[in-house]
């Protein structure tokens, strides 16, 4: 029997990363899978006012900090939401406001700095445990993190690979998504996604005993319902109007090959499970900003799923 724990879309949250690494021991899972979108969405400037004083605006609230203890406490608070603290001066901040390229550079630097810390934590926590960890960066993740995952002694970069989970089951993985309104790092047209999936599926011994670890959910699976947006990216009807935004290429692949299990993310509010034919598709959703690690615990035996449950740790 293989027990796997799947989580996704932790978006830079230190708390969720630590919980993910601890989930194997906590739930008794031998395989951990992170479905993508590991990196944070925002950098929060810590404005150095001199004399050990700082000004920080978090969630539209202004904080005046004094001393190292308050500074570190705020760093922790910012990191808990998946944001990146950045110490700066009023002059530099004014300059950054006018220069998107420099901001992008800071983003990359901060993402990689935190990611490096994460790799160290993972090595420390998982070394010698025998727990296998598979990671496939999602559409929101910069390409620079792939190499760091490759270098990790305890993580396996799963993107584009066929990975045997045990003697019965194999897994294919991809963090690429269909097009979004945000033009993110890893997105492409549906025909390209279809080719990406078929290339991996061709390497499977038995697709019906496969796990499709694909970041984007299949179209019209009820796991892909996102708020409908107007042309200004404003949710229509106070967020009450939802529309399916999943991948049609993935849906076709699932309908055609009927894998045992689909593990998805991407749509944070799409928590749930559904069936496409015989395939059980799961999206555990994400509450990373609250430091809650939502996941799915799945037990695989011989040629079937023995049990599964969505977790909220």
């Amino acid at each position, binding site marked *: 029997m293989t027990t796997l724990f799947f989580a996704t879309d932790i978006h830079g949250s230190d708390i969720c990363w630590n919980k993910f690494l601890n989930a194997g021991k*906590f739930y008794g899972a031998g395989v951990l899978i992170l479905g993508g979108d590991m990196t944070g969405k925002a950098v929060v400037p810590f404005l150095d006012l001199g004399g050990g004083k700082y000004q920080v605006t978090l969630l539209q609230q202004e904080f005046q900090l004094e001393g190292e203890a308050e500074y570190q406490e705020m760093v922790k608070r910012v990191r808990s939401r998946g944001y990146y603290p950045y110490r700066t001066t009023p002059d530099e901040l004014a300059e950054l406001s006018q220069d998107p390229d420099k*901001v992008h550079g800071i983003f990359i630097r901060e993402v990689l700095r935190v990611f490096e810390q994460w790799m160290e934590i993972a090595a420390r926590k998982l070394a010698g445990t025998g727990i296998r960890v598979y990671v496939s960066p999602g559409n929101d993740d910069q390409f620079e993190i792939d190499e760091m995952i490759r270098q990790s002694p305890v993580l396996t970069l799963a993107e584009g690979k066929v990975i045997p989970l045990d003697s019965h089951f194999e897994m294919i993985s991809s963090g690429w998504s269909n097009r979004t309104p945000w033009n993110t790092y890893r997105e492409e047209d549906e025909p390209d996604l279809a080719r990406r999936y078929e290339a991996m599926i061709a390497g499977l011994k038995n697709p019906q005993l496969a796990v499709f670890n694909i970041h984007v959910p299949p179209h019209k699976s009820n796991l892909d319902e996102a708020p409908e947006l107007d042309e200004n*990216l404003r949710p229509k009807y*106070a967020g009450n109007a939802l529309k399916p935004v999943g991948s049609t290429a993935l849906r076709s692949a699932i309908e055609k090959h009927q894998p045992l299990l689909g593990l998805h993310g991407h749509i944070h509010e799409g928590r749930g499970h559904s069936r496409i034919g015989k395939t059980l598709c799961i999206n555990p959703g994400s509450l990373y900003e609250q430091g809650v690690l939502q996941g799915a615990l799945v037990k695989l035996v011989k040629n079937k799923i023995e049990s599964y449950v969505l977790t909220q740790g």
Partner: protein
Amino acid sequence: MSDLFIRKATGLVRSWSVFDAFVYAFFSINLVTLGLYIFSQMYYFEGGLIGAMLLSAFFILFQVVVYAGLIAVMPRSGGDYVWQSRILGGGIGFILAVTGWWFILWLWVPLYGDMLRHIFLTPVLALLGARDAALWFSQTNHGLFIATLLTLAIVTFYIMLGMKRYARIQKVCFFGGILGLLIVVGLLLGGSPEAFQAGLESNSAALFGTDAGIYNATAAAGEEAGSVLGLTGGSFGVLLLTLPYVVFFNLYPNWGATLYGEVRGATDFKRNFAGMASALVVTTILGILTLLAIARTIGWDFYMQANGAWWNYAWGLAESQPPLPVWPYPALLAAFLTESRALQLLVIVLMSLWWFGWSGTVFLSSTRVVFAAAFDRLLPEKVAEVDERTGTPVIALLLMVIPSIIVSALFAYDILGFKSLTLAATLVIAVTYLGTTIAAILLPYRKPDMYNASPIAKYKIFGLPLISVAGVIFGGFLVFLLYQWLFDPNAMYGIGYSINPDGYKNGTSLVFMGVLYGIAAAIYFGFKAYRKRKGLDLDKVHAEIPSE
């Protein structure tokens, strides 16, 4: 100068329109359906209705603070179920959420049906000349039951359409309904008591075949029924006692709260608050204006007497049929001020949009709770399945529809006194709110990291977290309501076990509510035990993973 740099990433959307949030909340505390329906039943209360509306709105503003705060700390998380589960424990969260957001909606269905027949079916049929059909719907148990089945068909249709299309329908209904209300108020303000009396006599005779002198006969029947509710006045103590009735109408500005999206700052907290609070305030003002317009032309005393005459008969307290053989619907009474059948029909159709724009709420939230329970493995996987062809959650819908038909039949035919359960529909929801309110009070202390990382952490009253202070006030209000409903010391509500010797001891109500909580507890503990036998420890899957 920017205080936050955001990169390109999925889901970074702008805030939704406060107006859209307002529309959803505005329909949830629906003046024309919930409001006029329950005000009409309050004919025997002392105290002024305007004061009661203002006082209840004051307390419910604290509910808005509590829910806006919870959304700010734990947005998009699934609402009461998750808030309570995370803060108070999984069992409490499940039992209170499924009773308040699912089971009790079975009882709401016949109430929706009762409103449908009174504000749409009966007046429209009468205006179209189908007098017998109109009176059949209005007066018979069969009529109520069929109206309930029609309600089920309509809300099922809404479910099949999906939230996206329903939201569009709701917006059209909002503007149409407001137009209808403006016409009604215009008719009332432009008319005179004498014109109304004459219009009532002629139209009632033409539409329903009533005898001459219906105005005086109705007033006499209402007086006999004990109609005393005033429009204004009433001491604070007397007004307080009206609140367990009034909240049937306005306790739900948070009904869409579970759907609100990502909160990234204090502005979003304020937007949540503004959407719900403005709905409460605007509805209260509109309600007061409507009541004043009614008082001006229909006459407050007559309006309440007509209500008393109707409900006294409907509740079986009077044997003879009321002189006005239909529910005294203010829009219909206002329409009697014009001789134009076309305008009368237009008024009724426009006003019915208040029902059509609101009725979808009965199942849309329920199906979400059914799904959430299935995702937590507390229900079979099948109940969360969606039919691929129609996009309809067939089994979840059946879990709403089938019990609703049974409860509707009990209600329509008043089997075991089910017609007395109206306020129980609000009581069970209030219990759910109380659980959430307690969770909100404890949130800053039970989940300090989560709370401190939220945009509401800085809002304090005398050094105490705003959400806790608001929670204590709203929680106190709920406890007062529950005490009044359940122990009914003044023998006024009839849904509890009255400790007043003259009060009603409503065994049906208590058993019904007990059964709902019993079913919820049985599902929770039953499925937990079943899953455990299958190797799934549900306590474990909801426990927090160590983060160190």
